[in-house]
């Protein structure tokens, strides 16, 4: 019989605000994409301006959040530097994974910016000063968010070679959608996970035990 006492934290910890923001952002990206599909632009949602603005929005969000919530706020320059660094890293990674090197380089750049934008809130809410002092209480969530974003993108690539001749089967589109869905899902799970697995007494119960143990700790 294992049950952990859940962390005594306010419902509006940085972590949770980050999660809410992520869910909101991912949902609105998907919504935006859906709206554009009707206009016949289906394949080209993730253009350079779009991804760049998402990156800027997330940098602003992280800055504002840290300004209000953190004891030591994050410098704007370090956020920008971080965004540039991770974009370059993701760009190199996607070229290594087979993205075209010269052709469509703008798409690769916008994709890598989107990816770095997606993982920025989680890192910013966890890291005090971006790597200088990590807040280890939410390190787990940061890793999970990074991981599921990348995993979503990884899975998204598998529809590109299929011969369905859909307009959205062009290079960054399904991969970007996969990343957005992965990021949103992991944040959503983080938000509603405790609500499902924690009972009224504040014990975290994982799903198998929930059905076997009743009111023992109440």
């Amino acid at each position, binding site marked *: 019989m294992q049950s952990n006492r859940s962390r005594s934290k306010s419902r509006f910890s940085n972590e949770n605000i980050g999660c809410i923001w992520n869910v909101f952002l991912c949902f609105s990206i998907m919504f935006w994409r859906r709206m554009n599909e009707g206009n016949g632009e289906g394949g080209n949602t993730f253009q350079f301006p779009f991804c760049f603005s998402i990156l800027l929005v997330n940098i602003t969000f992280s800055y504002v959040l840290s300004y209000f919530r953190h004891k030591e706020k994050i410098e704007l320059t370090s956020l920008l530097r971080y965004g540039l660094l991770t974009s370059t890293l993701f760009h190199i990674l996607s070229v*290594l*994974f*087979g993205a075209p090197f010269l052709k469509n380089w703008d798409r690769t750049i916008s994709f890598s910016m989107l990816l770095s934008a997606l993982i920025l809130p989680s890192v910013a809410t966890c890291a005090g000063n971006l790597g200088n002092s990590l807040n280890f209480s939410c390190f787990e969530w940061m890793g999970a968010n990074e991981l599921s974003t990348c995993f979503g993108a990884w899975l998204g690539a598998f529809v590109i070679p299929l011969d369905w001749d859909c307009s959205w089967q062009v290079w960054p589109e399904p991969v970007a959608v996969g990343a957005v869905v992965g990021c949103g899902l992991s944040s959503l799970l983080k938000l509603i996970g405790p609500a499902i697995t924690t009972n009224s007494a504040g014990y975290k119960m994982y799903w198998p035990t929930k059905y076997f143990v009743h009111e023992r700790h109440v």
Partner: protein
Amino acid sequence: MKKRNLLLFSWLILLYANGVIYFLQGFLLTRREIHLKSAVFDGVSCCLDSKYKQIIILIIDALRYDFLVYNNSTNASSIPIYHNNLPVVQRLLKDNHGVLYQFVADPPTSTMQRLKGITTGSLPTFIDVGSNFASDELIEDNLLSQMTSSGLNITFIGDDTWLQLFPKSFQRSFPFPSFDVWDIHTVDRGVEHHLLPEMMKPDWNLLIAHCLGVDHTGHRYGPEHPVMPLKLKEMNSLIEKIVSNMNSRTLLLVMGDHGMTRSGDHGGDSPDEVNAGFFAYSPGWNIKLNNSKTRAISQVDLVPTLSLLLGIPIPYSNLGSVILDLVLPEQLWREIHPSEEHEKNIALSYFSEALYLNTKQIWRYLETYSRDSSFPKKEFEQLRSQFDLAVHIFGRLKMERCSSSCASDLNCCASSEMLEEFIQTAQIFLAEAKEMCRSMWARFDLTSISIGLIIFAFSLCLHANFLIDSESLRMRPVQCFGIMGAFLSILVQGWSSVVSLGLSLTPVFVYLIGTIGKMRLFQQFKFAYLAPFFMAVSYTSNSFVVEEPYVVHYLTQSFIWIPMFFKRPTKNRMWILRIALSLSTRLGLAYFRCREEQFPACEAYSLHRSLTSLSGTNWVVCGRVSIALASCIALYLLYKRYFSLDRQIVFIVMIVWCYWILQVLCFMNGSDTIGLIYLPRLFYIVFIGKLSHHMYTFLFDNELSKMPNYREKTSNMVILLSTLAILLAGDGLAPGIILTVVSLTLFSQLFTGDSSCGEMWPLYGLLSVHGFFASGHHTSLANVPWETAFVGISHSDIQSEWANVLPVLFVSYSTAFSMLLHAMSVPIVSLSEMILKNKDSRKLFNGWLYFLFFHAVRLFGCMGAAALHRRHLMVWKIFAPRLLYELLFAVYTSLGIVASLFIFQATM
């Protein structure tokens, strides 16, 4: 200890071979092409007088039978929109000017195969032995070649598939591209534009027009889309135009080469795909045929009919029988259907004449064919007696005719009963002959296919058992029996499937049952064992096969990087090695080749072309040379750092370089020197000498002092083997191959001393497949590297029988060298230290076992996909070539494993 490994591997390989042989027997039904031609004076198939001066064949691709038939249902809403769109056909039928048939195609119902059927009269199979892989040109005797040799002229308009099949047969041709399935108009517009002017010209005897619009509309929209009636109406107006410009000595044949399914596709054997429409019309006709039953003719029947109508010999390998209604003497067409005794006799004696020619031609073909490859004995004997009977009756007919007064005339007076008897006999013979050939060629042998798959599947279980249960020392006798059983089972293929199944699988079952209890399944199981299964599953999708280079590259990169998410290495060296490995794999992407299906999305770089075929500036040449040099130097440095490189390899590489430089110089001067032949030969001699030297040091030079060198010796052997591939591939692809060896070296450094990694062996298998693609290959028949066959062999050498062995060896080696290399270098990868210890054999053994498993599972996936999609549109274009390549990989993998196993045991 020693013998056990050999025993195991030979059992597994024999079992796999057994399964594959069974599978192929069922799947690749082969027909031998006979390249004899019928001639006018060969005593068998000379001809009737030509009936029509001009024949127009209008092929409307995918014209289904019910598109032509008039649907007179009163309930208008129940009529599908694709019905009743060809009113001209109804009009002509009503006026008794035409006949309508159901034109039954033999699967596979793809256009290329159908055109072969319509022109040669034979039933197609995948591998027509003797055909030329490099081009699609039809070599077998066919209608068009018979026409050209009789001096008749053919004009062709439409689908350019015809031009691939018959590049030299047409006096005038107007081909249009057929590849873009979404383009529904180009070909039809072209046909419309050229058809009438060509018809007006006096100099043609056969005019072939091939429209693709209906087929492409079906592929794009399906038959029930409103575009379909529009397209059919377009065809209607085309036919109308042709009909209004015909004279009475012209015959028009409108036909579909196959039908389409409800979704608009074709390729399989469903009734919708097989039943095409056939409509014949001539302005001179006035006939009333009995239309009570649907009249079906086979597509091959067109060949003898047309040849008799044109007055040319029936093509040698035809299997069709004459369509009697169409060869009716002309004067009878003009009148009402013969009712009087005399006219009936005229018709019947004409029919028997035609059938006699047809019968004799088919029997000659069957006899020639059976001389080298056997038919089922019982059926063949039955056919022979039927043929003898027909000949006998015909002889009696002739006797009677000779005795009567009108011997030389067609209007002769053999009794109609006898004529009818002959016609019946001949028709039975023709039908039986076709049926026998069809049962041999056009059908997959499903029992044989499934036996092959079953044997293979259980061998995989056994293999997995060996992998999981690393203490597989058990039950030596069972293993010995297993080897004997599998071997016997290969030998007794012909007997019965039950015997061979029992022989090969009983020891497997015994072994599995005997060991399953002692196995620690869950402790030993690793995720790595599942990795090849994902690839195997992907082979069931044609797009994943087409895009396989990129899929493999993606998976390789994933296996390099994803583990980094879970365990972060502490050593910087690991990071650097991983980055370098990833980079060298990515660079290999530049040497990927595109296949036909990938255009236009895929952009092939010009990198894999040879320097002599480049038309670029000096900069391009300089760039290419520097790439080649850089890759060579990189490999040299790497090898020098990690292994002790054998210096003599430099000499061999110098020969290769000299050869290339000479090639470029000769190309620039436009001359041809003897050095182009002798430099590669010098290379071969040095290569063989060096190889045997390596073998010698492995086998006999294993004193204790030499022992530490086992890993290095192997590495030198590998690099020696790679030089042969480099020479064969030419200067363009050389960097791609070098990159493969670089990746191999980096990989071996990455995992030294850490062979417990789960991702190690799957990554290794993936790298071997990646090496295949990175050396400029793709799994389509069009990308077989034929140019490698004649490196160092002059064309005058290929007279003798044995000379074919070397080209085959070269082509297969340059295709699958990556598998051989990777199988041979398992010791480099799995041994960390230079000194060979006794416990190392365990590691080595597991490496080999997994490598074989990886390729076997993929082969199984390919076999399964080919069997599953045996009626798929793309089976002969995508799945079957993939299977053949995978087979080649399997052969080279087992070759490499067995060779290095021998070397290892000799060294121990």
